[in-house]
């Protein structure tokens, strides 16, 4: 079965953040495509604009120039077609697990009984049976992220946008969640753009890893991963894996060095030095 939905195209995307004097360029002519059903991990040093890119794709940030399309439709505003998962969960604290998951369907105007039924199926998918009527505050961090993922997936998004979703979890839970995510992804076959600064995580999950430079973020490297699926934890210790990992570490290091060089450039100076110039 070939997947037809979830073709994302990012063309010459530049994006500025901040107001007036504090305005700076976060993204610089970013170009890449995500094929339908493809799992892409975006690696980069912190503050490089990875999350900004995700925000733009979600429709929460407006772009300065370039084009963003999903299945040839321009991205103008947030839409359930593009499900966004944050690092810290954004579940509604006043809604039960089931109500949180069913929220998207409620917004579509689907009748209560029907949406609860579908939400229950999602609860099963993310392995949270027995927790349907708990509030988010009663769940562990890993469980909260599972609910978050289920809440997004119930809308059958064309693409799943994940912003370091397991970054706040302990190592054990993180591994579990990675396996679970791969399982779910294999079942529902949506495109995924997964942001992380953890090289192991990126290589373990992705079909393709993109590496971003320091701010303003550009794509500086693209690595296709041919590891067989379903993937196993042993993969992480294989020689092929470590070789690619070494390469990634090197690339990220270089990205950081370039950034340090550019800091010496007067055009790239921070706020404080600029004030000095005007004095």
């Amino acid at each position: 079965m070939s997947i037809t939905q979830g073709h994302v195209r990012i063309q010459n995307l530049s994006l500025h953040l901040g107001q007036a004097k504090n305005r700076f360029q976060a993204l610089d002519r970013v170009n890449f495509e995500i094929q339908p059903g493809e799992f892409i991990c975006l690696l980069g040093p912190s503050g490089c604009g990875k999350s900004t890119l995700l925000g733009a794709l979600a429709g929460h940030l407006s772009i300065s120039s370039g084009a963003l399309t999903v299945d040839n439709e321009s991205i103008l505003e947030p839409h359930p077609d593009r499900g966004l998962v944050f690092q810290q969960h954004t579940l509604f604290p006043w809604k039960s697990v089931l109500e949180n998951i069913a929220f998207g369907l409620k917004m579509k105007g689907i009748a209560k009984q029907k949406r609860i039924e579908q939400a229950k199926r999602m609860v099963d998918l993310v392995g949270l049976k027995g927790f349907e009527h708990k509030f988010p505050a009663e769940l562990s961090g890993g469980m909260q992220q599972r609910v978050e993922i289920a809440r997004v997936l119930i809308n059958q998004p064309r693409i799943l946008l994940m912003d370091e979703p397991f970054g706040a979890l302990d190592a054990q839970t993180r591994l579990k969640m990675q396996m679970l995510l791969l399982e779910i992804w294999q079942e529902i076959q949506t495109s995924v753009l997964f942001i992380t600064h953890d090289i192991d995580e990126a290589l373990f999950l992705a079909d393709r890893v993109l590496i971003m430079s320091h701010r303003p973020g550009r794509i500086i490297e693209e690595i296709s991963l041919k590891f067989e699926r379903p993937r196993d934890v042993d993969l992480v210790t294989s020689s092929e894996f470590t070789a690619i990992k070494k390469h990634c570490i090197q690339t990220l290091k270089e990205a950081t060095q370039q950034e340090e060089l550019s800091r010496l450039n007067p055009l790239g100076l921070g706020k404080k030095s600029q004030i000095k110039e005007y004095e």
Partner: protein
Amino acid sequence: MSSLVQTKTKNQSTFLIRFYGQLRTYQAHFKNYVIAFTSIAFWIVIWQGLAQFKINLGIVNFSNVPTPLDVIHALWAFFQLSTAFEHVESSVFRVVVGFVLAALIGVGIGLLAGRYQKLAAFLMPPLEVLRPIPAVAWIPLAILIFPSSEASMIFITFIGALFPILLNTVHGVGAVDPRLVASAKSLGASDLAIIYEVIIPGALPNIITGLSIGMGTCWFCLVTAEMISGQHGIGYFTWESFTLQNYSNIVVGMVLIGALGMFSSSLVRVIGNRFTPWYQLRKS
């Protein structure tokens, strides 16, 4: 068989642990009640002493202050009055009407002002100017504006409750996590849906705090309101007792207002907590 016995003892022990745990929390509560009661009793005894021996300390003079015992007698006498119920009833009516109006308008404006900054820039400045004006200062205008004295009295209690409710609502809306709003948008929520699915429940704990404080200030302003006129009401009764130099009854009025105010405030809080079980969870 042996395993069966074992599970039974295990159940029993967990039951006992829970039982003792429960008992300990009751004990803790009980201790707090004892402390609270002792504290109140202590000050009543001090008051009795000061009033009974007509202590005159120069700056403060207790010779005309009724003793707690006098007050208890007067309280008893108050409830023997044929008009006692009418006094309480008219006061409760004024407070409830003023409070409900303040709740509707305060929460309504608060939600709008908290959500839309431009609207806040338009709505809030005049309200900020009005806020420091005490209820007492409103009396002459209230009499001029409203045709009936009942309406002007309700207006005074309304003014008392409006600002705490309004400001807490604005604050509550401002405190809603913007990521929740972004998430709701991503999940397909319309602007209206964001207000009733995210903003209102998110601000609800603060709104409840505002309502509870507002209920208190309503009673606070009651004496002021009932100074205007009327034949009934606890505030009126208190004010009349002062003009008639019936000092025990002043304290009776004060005690009644205090008790009713405390009771209704905690009633608002208890009802509010019922609506926010998730928030109680987060606090513990």
